[in-house]
Structures are given as C-alpha cells and as structure tokens.
C-alpha cells in the first residue's frame, strides 16, 4: 500500500515538474523571440494620418508588424491612449491578434482626435503565450507624440 501511494505521488511530481519545464521554457522562448523579432522590424512600424482642414479632426493609424519566431502561438496586444495636458484620455485605440509560430501579422491601432488637444500618449504592448497563462508586458508614457499637429 505504501509503495503504491508513494509511487503514484512520485509519478505525479515528475509529471508536474515536466509540465512546469515545458510551460515555462516554450512560453518564455516564444515571447522573447516575438519581442526580438518585432524589435528587429521596428523600422517597419508605419504611421498614417489624415487631417480634416475644416474640422481639425485627425485620424491616426499605426501599423505594427509582429513576427512570431517562437514555437507556440502568442497573443499580442497593442494599445495607445492619447492624453491631453490635464491628463484626460482624448482618444484610444487597441488591437490584438493571435499569431502562430513563424507567422507575421500586422496590428492596426486607430485613434481619432482633435488637432492640438493631445499632449502625450500611454503606449502598451503585451505578449502572452500558452493559453494566455504566461505573459510579458510593457507600458510607457510618451510626451507630445503628435509633433506636427500644433494647436490651431
């Protein structure tokens, strides 16, 4: 009886350790590879903007190509919040995509705001793997990202 119970628990421990190793190694490898693959293509990030000269409304579209060089699917999210001088959110855009190993997909973040109202931006990037259970995220505040859109 003792041998049987002890054996079952030993096998369970081995399976759990193997799962731990597989989950952490595949997830962290895929996340870091995706991050490095995307940073290598940082120059491919495209900004398209159109301004209505009558109303002063600016349509900003940011195209972010993401390449998954890992071995498991990753879920990538990019979010942009445009902030006015008093700290209120003027506009926000968000996109997320599931990217399989070896695939490259483009995330598109669109934001519409009035010219001259934006004073800074909160940028967020999140990459999760293994059923979204393991993840790495970055967030940063950028001051005056809308250079070229001066107050009227």
């Amino acid at each position, binding site marked *: 009886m003792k041998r049987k119970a002890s054996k079952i628990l030993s096998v*369970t421990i081995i399976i*759990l350790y193997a799962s731990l190793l597989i989950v952490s190694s595949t997830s962290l490898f895929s996340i870091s590879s995706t991050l490095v693959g995307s940073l290598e293509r940082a120059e491919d990030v495209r900004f398209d903007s159109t301004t209505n000269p009558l109303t002063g409304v600016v349509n900003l579209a940011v195209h972010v190509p993401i390449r998954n060089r890992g071995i498991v699917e990753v879920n990538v999210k990019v979010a942009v919040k445009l902030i006015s001088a008093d700290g209120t959110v003027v506009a926000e855009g968000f996109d997320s995509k599931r990217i399989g190993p070896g695939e490259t997909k483009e995330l598109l973040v669109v934001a519409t705001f009035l010219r001259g109202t934006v004073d800074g931006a909160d940028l967020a990037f999140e990459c999760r793997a293994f059923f979204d259970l393991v993840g790495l995220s970055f967030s940063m505040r950028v001051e005056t990202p809308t250079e070229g859109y001066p107050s009227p």
Partner: protein
Amino acid sequence: MRRYVKAVLSASFYIIFLSILPSLSLWLLPPEIKSYVLLIKDYTGIDVQFMITVALIVGLMLAALSFAKNMTHEWSIMNLIAALLSEAIGFYMSLFLLGLGNPLSMGLAKIPINYGGGATAALDLRFVTLLGAVIMAVSAAKSVVNFYYARKERPV
C-alpha cells in the same frame, strides 16, 4: 556509511548550485560587467547582489535540511519536519526568483524602468507559480504518506 555519503552528496548539491556558483559567478565577472550588473538596481530596482545573498542563505538552509533528512530514519519526526521545511523553503525560493526579488508578488514581477520617462515592464509567471505550489503540496503529501507508512511498518 552509505547513508552518510548520500546525505553529504545531496547537501553538496544545494551548496554548489545555490550558494557557491551564484556568488562565484558575480565575483568572477570582469569589473566593467560587474558594475553594469550592479547598475541594474538603479534602473529597474532589481537588486542582483541581494538575490545572490538570499540564494546563498537558502542554499545553506536546504543543505542542512537535506543532510538532516538523509541522516534520519523515514519514521523519525525529524525526517518529516526536514522534508516539509525543505518543500516550504524551496517554494519560497521559487517565489523569490519568479518575483525577481519580491516573493510577495506571487509570480507577477513588475519592473519599473527608470530611464527618464515612466516605463514599466511586467512579467506574469503566476501560472508557473501555481504549478510550483501544486508540486510543493504533492511533495509534502508524499513525505507525510512515507512517514505514516514507515511508522506503521517500524520494527518495535
């Protein structure tokens, strides 16, 4: 004799991998790289030197517990206490490492990046922490089962 050799070998494992190697690797680094490693604290709040000191202390504690566990009989209460304490300390060490020096973060390490602007990185390893907790619980259960049956079968 065999028991003594096993106890010394298992204790040496913890001393080498947790106490000696991390301290030695920081000590052997070239001065310019060492200064970069120590600068990580200023930019991210991650204190590498403190983490190595904690690893050294935990390594010594685990070595002592492993030695005590291997030197005592399975039916001894000391054996059970040493096994359970080893599991708890091992789990604390994994929480400490996954939280990048903050075991209370429970696997969600938030790293403020001080470069002049306000940036934050977050490493979410809560699922890995949960798996670690399950492993600790199953290992503790195994120790209790072994102790229980060893006591039952103990020759009087």
